[in-house]
């Protein structure tokens, strides 16, 4: 009797710890967002920023062209979208990372290391530069569909290959790396045949940035991120089953191949929508879930929301750094994230580890 109670108490204790972690991350996101908003060129202070945002949401009207009206206008239309996009990117990439790691039973998988980001980037660039869209839809949705098809190629190649040959996690990632090289080569080819001066643009596309974000560009990623992460969170139990291995998952009643294909489609769509608007940002889907698993264990039900919050915090923090480091100039957020993420990736490869998944 008392033993049973102990387990119950332990479980609630664990759940509490996880909830506290998520709450802390959310608080961190709010604080970092506030700091980031204070760099606004108009001298609006830390608390004032929150005030303006809350007032705007509540629908407060300011006298036309007054100081407060300008403050509100600048803050709401140039700086808030940036924060929103940062949160979306963090959530989206982290949730994709968690899903892919479980789907492929590979702790090193994420949209960037497997080549999905670069494939999507190639698709988007092809749409923007040549105006060629695979769907009849034009405009930004056309770019997204192209990016989706581009991102799907590496995703499907890896799913297919791993069903034909038994690939170790490391080999899978290397194939992804090779594909990302092919895609960035093709991308440069497209850019250069279009216009000699766009080489610079091609390069910049490969390093994500949140600069110049507007509300219009946030809508599509927002919808897809919410829908995609809701689905992936809903299927977190199935993802847990998959990490037991394919045959165990099958014997527990999961249609493994169908589920995996469906999830990869969603991941590709989500990543495509993000890449089309911000460019390639790597390692978020690798670092955030990894840290969360280290602290909270491997249950996807908690790993997903916690990684989403931590991912947002990571992206916003990196964005803040990118704006502060060479103020008044600005670095690109993708650069900062690689600077932090790449060493962690190296550490994950080299260390000897047992436990979640067998890496080598």
């Amino acid at each position, binding site marked *: 009797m008392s033993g049973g109670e102990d387990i119950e108490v332990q479980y609630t204790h664990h759940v509490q710890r996880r909830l506290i972690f998520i709450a802390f991350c959310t608080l961190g996101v709010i604080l970092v967002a506030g700091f980031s908003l204070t760099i606004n060129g108009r001298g609006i202070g830390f608390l004032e920023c929150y005030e303006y945002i809350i007032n705007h949401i509540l629908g407060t009207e300011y006298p036309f062209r007054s100081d407060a009206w300008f403050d509100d206008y600048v803050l709401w239309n140039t700086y808030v979208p940036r924060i929103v996009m940062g949160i979306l990117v963090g959530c989206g990439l982290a949730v994709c990372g968690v899903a892919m790691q479980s789907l492929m039973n590979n702790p*090193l998988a994420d949209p960037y290391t497997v080549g999905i980001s670069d494939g999507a980037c190639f698709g988007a660039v092809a749409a923007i530069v040549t105006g060629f869209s695979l769907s009849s839809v034009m405009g930004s949705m056309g770019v997204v569909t192209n990016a989706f098809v581009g991102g799907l190629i590496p995703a499907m190649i890896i799913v297919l*290959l791993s069903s034909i*040959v*038994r*690939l*170790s996690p*490391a*080999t899978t*990632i*290397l*194939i992804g*790396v*090779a*594909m990302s*090289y*092919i895609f*960035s*080569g*093709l991308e*440069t*080819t497209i850019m*250069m*045949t279009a216009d*000699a001066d766009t*080489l*610079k643009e*091609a*390069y*910049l596309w490969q*390093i994500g940035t949140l600069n110049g974000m507007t509300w219009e560009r946030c809508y599509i990623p927002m919808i897809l991120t919410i829908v995609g992460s809701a689905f992936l969170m809903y299927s977190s139990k199935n993802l847990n089953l998959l990490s037991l291995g394919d045959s165990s998952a099958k014997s527990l009643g999961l249609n493994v191949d169908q589920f995996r294909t469906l999830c990869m489609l969603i991941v590709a769509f989500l990543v495509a929508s993000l890449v089309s608007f911000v460019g390639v940002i*790597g390692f978020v889907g690798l670092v955030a879930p990894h840290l969360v698993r280290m602290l909270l264990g491997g249950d996807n039900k908690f790993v997903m929301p916690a990684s989403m919050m931590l991912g947002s915090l990571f992206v916003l923090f990196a964005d803040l750094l990118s704006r502060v480091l*060479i103020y008044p*100039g600005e*670095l*690109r957020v993708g*650069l900062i994230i*690689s*600077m932090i*993420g*790449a*060493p962690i*990736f*190296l550490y994950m*490869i*080299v260390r*000897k580890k047992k436990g979640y998944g067998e*890496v*080598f």
Partner: protein
Amino acid sequence: MSPEMFDENVYYRSNSRKVSLTIVFLVLAVLTAFFSIFLSKIGDLSFEATWEILKAHLSGTSVDNEIHDLVVWEYNVPRAIMGLFVGAGLAVGGAVMQALMRNPLADPYTTGVASGASLGAVMFFTMGISLLSLDNYTLATTTNALILSMIPTMAIVLISQHKHITPTTMILAGIAIMYVFRAATSLMMFVADPESVEEAYIWSVGTLGSASWDNIWFVAGSVTVISVLLLLVSNQVTIMTAGDRSASTMGVWAKPLRIICLLLIAIMTAIMVSFTGTIGFMGLVAPHIARVFVGSNMRYLIPCSAALGSLILIGADCLAKTISMTGMPVGVITSIIGGPIFIILLIKGAKKVWF
């Protein structure tokens, strides 16, 4: 006729076949390089005009059209020569590294050596930081590249000591090192000068466009010397593919030899990278094709890889010159060709053991 005599004849015949194949590749490479001189989109240069300029320079007479002369003699000719030597150097580096580490995926690029060198070079020409505080531009770039290429080299030596590290993991570690260095390189480019992104890009993919008469001597000399040195120890390197312990019983001092060879390759890579940036997958593709023709004996593999490396790089450069009006960086072409080959090697490696 005794069986021994017969065997010996077959052996010699197959060897002479290997040598003649290597010579064929070499001749092809030189011919392609010669052809690439005639490919230029700058100005209204015709085939005959280029030929006249070349003839004039070789016979010592003067040329009328100065711009044409500049394009052909100061730009295209060094570029072709640079292509020959860099292709050879990368291929030799790859062939030897693959044997030393018993890893079919190793080359100066996948193990991160080239990216380390690249960071060193960029460090000097964007920020003016010289690690040995030298003033000479070429020397400072190269020494920087050399010092920083030692970091991945040492990392490889250390990581390869672990028994549980598979060839794939090794390369993955190399690629992670590459990500770190590349991020640092981009950061430096951004901080130094917002306008230099284009330069950064060309550097990160590799180009032959910066070749000139001043720097090709440096590259040509180091590639020749180090390739010859590696060729001198080729028999020992061949024995080392049987594993360290077997090599030791056959009188090869395995560990020091590995470190010395890796250092030589790092030096060669650093020098090449300081002038061309990082050209990907060359050291991977050329040795693997060469192995199909001449087998795994390093005595034949090193020269044949070198010839094939030159041929492939110059071929890719011709392609790069024809595709784009302004001259696309050759590294783009090599990664489009090399990427799929890398994937095929990976899948093959998942099926069977190498050597």
